[in-house]
């Protein structure tokens, strides 16, 4: 009997496949189907701090726009008794998801200011989420802002959230840090229970016909996995926090690679959007078959087996690797 189980954020998971945070999670039905297909846990779509602020501001603007200008139409809308502004809808979604499935439900919070994070994190915990993933989407565009300031901002956020909740906290990051290993270690010190590598940002595209900048997000491919593998492999065993791979996980092979590099779980979304939620079932079957074929008894056995600490050529994950690739083109 092959043991696919793993642990992540202190949670016992039946296997390492976890659908990552995406709009798919907005439907409870999808979450149920994920559980049915074998997902070990789910990361809910993100609660955006800006979205709440924005909803509130749009409502306010619409209710105020043009009011008290003309005697016949002093206001334009009935000002209803209550509005579900703020995270209520999201919290309700957590409650519903918890009631609908028995796998762990990890909420996701996306924001930038210390104040907002802390308050919402507590509410998410109270709504019953098993853990929290902090999604830090921040583009350091200000030419006056230093790397040290950006890193300090992240660390403050993590400390503030950690101080306010009891549930485990994972931090999902982008790849653009100049000294990532050091930063990862400091996030570890700040109390992050896991690092999720890496966020795939919406990237701006240029519309040549209309001369507009348009946001674009293509589905990932397995080719994006290597960046994740490198950093998981580098960090494995060097920090206390769990590591998770997100971005580029499509196949059973991708999952196995993630595990061997040192990840506790492998997250998936693009593959599910492309091939449907049932894709999980097939990947799990393949993972099991591969392990069977290669005589692995458990996932935990392979976790970190090809991390930088464990491989024969540790330099392969560093600069030497670059030289090697270049040379491979010298035919």
């Amino acid at each position, binding site marked *: 009997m092959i043991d696919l189980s793993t642990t992540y954020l202190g949670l016992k998971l039946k296997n390492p496949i976890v659908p990552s945070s995406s709009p798919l999670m907005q439907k409870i039905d999808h979450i149920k189907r994920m559980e049915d297909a074998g997902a070990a846990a789910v990361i809910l779509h993100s609660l955006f701090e800006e979205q709440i602020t924005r909803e509130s501001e*749009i*409502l306010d603007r619409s209710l105020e726009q043009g009011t008290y200008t003309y005697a016949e*139409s002093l206001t*334009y809308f009935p000002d209803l008794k209550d509005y579900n502004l*703020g995270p209520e809808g999201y919290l309700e979604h957590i409650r519903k998801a918890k009631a609908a499935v028995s796998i762990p439900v990890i909420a996701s919070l996306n924001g930038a200011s210390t104040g907002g994070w802390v308050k919402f994190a507590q509410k998410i915990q109270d709504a019953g989420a098993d853990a929290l993933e902090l999604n830090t989407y921040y583009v350091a565009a200000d030419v006056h802002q230093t790397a040290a300031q950006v890193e300090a901002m992240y660390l403050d956020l993590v400390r503030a959230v950690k101080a306010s909740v009891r549930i485990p906290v994972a931090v999902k990051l982008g790849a653009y840090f100049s000294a990532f290993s050091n930063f990862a270690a400091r996030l570890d010190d700040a109390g992050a229970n896991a690092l999720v590598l890496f966020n795939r940002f919406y990237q701006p595209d240029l519309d040549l016909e209309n001369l*507009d900048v348009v946001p674009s997000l293509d589905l990932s491919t397995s080719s994006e996995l290597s960046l994740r593998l490198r950093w998981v492999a580098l960090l494995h065993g060097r920090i206390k926090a769990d590591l998770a791979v997100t971005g580029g996980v499509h196949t059973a092979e991708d999952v196995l690679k993630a595990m061997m590099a040192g990840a506790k779980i492998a997250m998936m979304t693009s593959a599910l959007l492309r091939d449907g939620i049932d894709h999980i079932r097939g990947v799990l079957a393949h993972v099991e078959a591969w392990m069977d074929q290669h005589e692995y008894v458990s996932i935990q056995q392979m976790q970190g087996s090809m991390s930088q600490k464990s491989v024969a050529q540790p330099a392969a994950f560093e600069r030497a690797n670059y030289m090697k690739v270049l040379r491979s083109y010298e035919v």
Partner: protein
Amino acid sequence: MERAKVTWDGNESTAYVAHQLSEVIAIYPITPSSPMGEWADQWSSEGKRNIWGTVPLVVEMQSEGGAAGAVHGALQTGSLTTTFTASQGLLLMIPNMYKIAGELTSTVFHVSARSLAAQGLSIFGDHSDVMATRQTGFALLCSNSVQEAMDLALIAHAATLQARVPFLHFFDGFRTSHELMKIEQLSVDDIRALIDDDLVRAHRARGLSPDHPVMRGTAQNPDVYFQARETVNPFYLATPEIVQKTMDRFAQIVGRPYHLFDYVGAPDAARVIVIMGSGAEVTQETVEYLIARGEKVGVLKVHLYRPFSIEHFVNALPKSVKTIAVLDRTKEPGSAGEPLYLDVVAALAERSNVERLNVEHVIGGRYGLSSKEFTPAMVKGIFDEMKKDKPKNHFTIGINDDVTHTSLDYDPNFSTESKETVRCLFYGLGSDGTVGANHNSIRIIGEDTDNYAQGYFVYDSRKSGTMTTSHLRFGPQPIHSAYLIRSANFVACHQFSFLERFDVLKSAEPGGVFLLNSLYGPAEVWDHLPRTVQKQIIDKKLKFYVIDAYKVAQETGMGGRINTVMQTCFFAVSGALRVPRDQAIAAIKRSIEKTYGKRGEAVVQKNFAAVDATLERLYQVKVPDQVTSTFDLRPPVPPEAPEFVQRVTAAMIAGAGDDLPVSALPVDGTYPVGTTQWEKRNIALEIPVWDEKVCIQCGKCVLVCPHAVIRAKVYDEKYLAHAPQTFKSTKARWKEFEQMRYTLQVSPEDCTGCTLCVEVCPAKNKTETRLKAINMMPQPPLREPESENWKFFESLPEMDRTQINLQLVKDSQLLEPLFEFSGACAGCGETPYVKLVSQLFGDRAIVANATGCSSIYGGNLPTTPWAANADGRGPAWSNSLFEDNAEFGLGFRLTLDKRLEYASELLKKLASTVGGELVDALLHADQSNEAGILQQRGRVQLLKEKLANDRSSAAQELLSVADVFVKKSVWIIGGDGWAYDIGYGGLDHVLASGRNVNVLVLDTEVYSNTGGQMSKSTPRAAVARFAAGGKPLPKKDLAMLAMTYGNIYVARVAMGANDVQTLRTFLEAEAYNGPSLIIAYSHCINHGIDIAKGLEQQRLAVQAGYWPLFRYNPALAAQGKNPLILDSKAPSIPLQKYAYNETRYTMLTLSNEAEAERLLKLAQEDVDRRWKQYEQLAALKYNGEGK
């Protein structure tokens, strides 16, 4: 028992009682009563119960006539039923009111009394409407104040159950309906205690039921009708005493005594004024002031006007009275006197047979029509007149009647204001939040202190860039001052630009406080003040404060809303709360939390931030002792404006319309066109600036500009010789005008800054893509040079209409608009269509305009946007009513058709004089294009010349009708409230008439003008007034209904989605020799969108298939083709992508997510189903096709 104190207006106070005491409420919006219906609807949708523990059923009807019918039906089946209305709405209820009274049915209609449309419409208050119902058999009960509106509403509901006579409870529109006043709220126990459930059950038992059938509403013959009509007499005789007893019982419970006629004054008064409504409060204040100074005067305040109890009336009068003045707030031209006066005269005449009365004079007078101010000075003027041996009868007060000399003189400086009452005046801009903040301020004062408090708000007649004036009073004494503040301890001007337009310090009291929102700091502001302002600050020794509120608002995320900043300043410098600053700040924050809390933390925090950032930026200005300014207030209109505009319009623009004498005004409501051009409002902070190098000359910006402030001309280069230095010009991008020049010019002083033009501009700057061919830039530095350019641009010749290809947007936008600079909302979605009509057909159009937004921005004084061209031709415009617009426009057509027939007959008769060839040409002219019309104009001119010297009666007759030979274009324009609801019956009939009329429905999907009430055009899932829980049913498909006739041209357009289709539709509809119906998507502030994105929403509406574009042209059917052409593609995005950009939809997701989801799903099904229907209809094979 301690009752809650609330700061409410008359509408809310009345609706509060009516909702508690009703089972069924049938409503229809009409100013100023709409808020009563809105409250009732909102409370019911929130599940608020009446005193019997059930939620009243609130139903919106298609008209007040419909509401009255539904009320009648609900009453006849035994429900406790009420309605709210005013003005024309009340007139529409009259037929049912006779029935309801004739059948002795208990009900209360609550009316915020308003003027009736006569020489002009007015939304403001007087008793003309109520007086038109005094013959119906309803009891008429009048409340004179906000507190009374609540109290007498209850007394009316209680009394009608016992009396069986229906009641009309009324109070003054705006003055009472919209005045915020601190009052005592009746508790549910109070209301409960006054209502007798046995009477309720008796009312129910009288209802029609098949379980105990009876008949009501028979037809009666000469033998019994008369006697049957007299059967009700005992009920009317008993009613006054029933009302008095109910008042007495109310007094026992609540402690406020009322009488049918309340006398206040000296017990031995010789002069007594009889009056009802808010004017009674003013009179009382004056009487009390005069008595304190030893005068023997009094006021008899009328509450129960019908049934008029002579006995109660005479008993209420002091026996000492010698002279009585009866004041009526209405006018009955040609009568022996106004109604209350006649009643008083009759009462005294009857009573003099019984007892010896010493009354020597009874005089009647009119006051306060259409909310004309009625002040203690006027009351004093009347009392003074009453002292005379022969006081003037049938007088007017408050105006200068220099024609028939009815008006009384009075000293306008007479004042009764108590020294203890603080009076504050605020001048704000509609969009800056001033009024909203003052609502809060007066509530804070009313609820956080022991003071009495009153707030009243005045608006001008525009929907954009309006000046608002807030009048706040508070103090330890009860406030009876139902008139505007004329002498203020505190004046705040929230807009710097007002200083040079209005005399804002006119009402400032010596030693008072002046607070100014100024971008100039305390050191430099003085030099930017006009002389008049400087002089008054010095002379009146005003304490002068400045704050840069816009800066604080910007910095704290408040955008252009300076309400919180200015409110904080008000409390800081006025000391209104008489508490330390930090406590005042805490009170403001509590009020912010209360008002905005439910809109989310972010909004509250932003307002808190504004409060916190304010005080350190508030400065007192050290006032110099010399007037130093080199400029003064600007004249309201330029010197080149025509005589009428100089003499009359200018006074209205300057806010001095009250001073115009009767002789200044037209006798029949006829006004000159094209007057908006003289009122330069300068309301845009930024205006579009043209980049001629980037522009592709597509004309889209000109087309969509709601205010006709951006225009294009193609002209000969020679004209540039005298162009101003900064005037821009470039080569015209037309093959046929290759040698000519092109200019796109903006009128800087008329622009509202809405940015629709920039949004629609398709051309981008290739080196800096954020820039387009037009870009917004700050207005102030551009004002002078661009005004000069605009003047020059206007002097360039208009395009020759015959040289233009009207099928092209680019060409059509070279046509002169004859609808310009309207006061519509900035970014209005309706006016671009109206303007297009004026461009294409304006020089031969006659427009019937339904009441609504389009009649307000189209025809509200002081100025009108409908204009004439250089030949003096242009749209002739009129507004009849709300409900009859289609019929009104048909009348125009009937005249034209008949006149053409008559003219043709005359022409044939005069063939020998005129010449056969010209006769033939005139009768058979092809006027299908501009060239043909121009030729026909030439022929008519020739005809006139030929007839000029013929004195025969036939020739003279023909001369008077000859213009009809030039094709005229009849346009019937209105909104969806008219076309889908109140006017639908008439519209249907007119469309079915087959006559050549063009109907343009400006579809905003709600009653926009009255603040967004649901119409049958409102889409499913949208929140609107009267649909606070989201509209549960789909939008009516007016186009589909019209298509069923087969001979009506029907089209649906959305300019933002397809401007070419819009243009073609207008041309085809007008060309079609029969009825045409164009339904135009009009984005609106009521949709809860960023109005600059209105055109984008139109595009999405079409893409989602929510608003399919099509034309149904019966002319095609005549050619054997399918008349229906779909001009848009099958839905390509889900409805949600369009709908959820609009707060009218998303509001429901925030208040009731599950319901929003359910309704959106159904709405999507509506879209899918309708699209399929259209698609199938468009695919049908007609005779000539696909055999």
